[in-house]
């Protein structure tokens, strides 16, 4: 339809607001907003930190059933192991958790690995036991895989049994894993370092294997020579 010739609404007086006024308004509004943000950050910081710590602890307890207390450490590229403090970790540092049982004895190591799955990063936590040089449990930290297909890695009993004793022993010179952790087609697993994929969820299965392998290849050569250091701290 044709717009009426006369102006639809009386226009506001066409005087431009001065730049100073614009700047002042934006500054005042930004200052108010800044105060609100800082206040809410400070108010929620402690709770959020606690939540993160509890979530990490829960994940560790899941992969190391004997654990009853957890300490967080960083493995530096130089090979040193230092307790994780506040602030950002130095570049190249790997975060891991050292777990202790109810009697305070060293119960194993837990660390996180991640690899690209079908939809997004699949982040897994795995538990390492030094007595068998193997992985004794995994848990999924986060994923966005297809419900009913990729998320079978949480429920498929055959798949989970891969991680009862997944061999990750190191080479003689402790420079890398003796055998790469490999995901193989469903039903052809023959070696203790292989992972039997879920048929129909191969991409997600592979992501789990790759995440574990990448993290273990980096972390374990740094860690295994110095496990005594963690034992002492208990």
């Amino acid at each position, binding site marked *: 339809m044709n717009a009426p010739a006369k102006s639809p609404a009386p226009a506001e007086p066409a005087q431009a607001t001065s730049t100073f006024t*614009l700047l002042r308004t*934006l500054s005042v509004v930004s200052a108010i*907003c800044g105060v*609100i943000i800082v206040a809410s950050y400070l108010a929620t910081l402690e709770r959020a930190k606690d939540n993160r710590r509890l979530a990490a602890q829960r994940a560790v307890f899941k992969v190391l059933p004997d654990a009853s207390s957890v300490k967080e450490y960083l493995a530096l590229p130089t090979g040193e192991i230092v307790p994780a403090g506040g602030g950002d970790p130095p570049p190249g540092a790997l975060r891991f958790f050292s777990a202790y049982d109810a009697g305070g004895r060293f119960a194993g190591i837990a660390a996180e690995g991640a690899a690209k799955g079908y939809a997004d990063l699949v982040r897994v936590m795995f538990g390492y036991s030094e007595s068998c040089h193997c992985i004794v449990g995994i848990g999924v930290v986060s994923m966005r895989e297809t*419900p*009913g297909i990729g998320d079978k890695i949480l429920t498929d009993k055959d798949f989970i049994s891969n991680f009862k004793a997944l061999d990750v022993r190191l080479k003689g010179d402790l420079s890398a894993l003796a055998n790469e952790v490999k995901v193989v087609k469903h039903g052809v697993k023959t070696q203790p370092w292989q992972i039997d994929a879920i048929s129909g969820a191969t991409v997600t299965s592979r992501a789990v294997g790759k995440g574990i392998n990448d993290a273990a290849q980096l972390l374990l050569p740094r860690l295994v020579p110095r496990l005594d250091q963690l034992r002492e701290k208990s």
Partner: protein
Amino acid sequence: MSGPSPAAFSMAPPSQWEEFTEGMWRRNPVFVMVLGMCPTLAVTVSAINSISMGLATTFVLAASCLLVSALRRLIPKEVRIATYIVIIATFVTVVDYAVQAISLDLYEALGAYIQLIVANCLVLGRAEAHAARAAPIPATLNAIGMGLGFTLGLTMIGGVREILGAGAFFGIPLFGPGFQPWVVMVLPPGGFFVMAGWLLLFAIVRRRLAARDAGATRAAPVANSGACHGA
């Protein structure tokens, strides 16, 4: 062609109750204005996610509309959109921190969609179309009503998707172990299917009501549905 009569409602200023209930039914953000579709389709895989997302949006809506309305005489029109976005982004940040403090699982489940509330057409639309020209109390009431209407819409979609796609409601299994989940319902296409189903139902109800009113008074001001105010 019968001309639209938008003046029908603006004869008298709406009462506070009308302000509050506007978003629940007459201009429900999800089913009537069809605003904020990005979170509506993306996070409604379960009822609890939907209700959390709805409440987070409600808080952002109410708080930013209150502040926009309180500052409305100070904000020059040249920088109003920038100001509104700063205000909205502030409260989105507050919600982001709050959800992290309340539940990390929920934070993971909602993902980037909490931050994306800042780009929700509904929030900026209400700030620009309503809060900028209303006093703080009616503006906030209207915003809360809109937010609750949004929450209701999300939960109606999320509830159906969870029941069909996971056989549960608010995480409580409904059908026992023999149930074969209708997986497509929790995948992205399911969001569109369920949304379309509800829209169809609402269109039918609306048409019936309008036809009844028309039979009674011979006036037919059907509430227009595509009302995306400037955002």
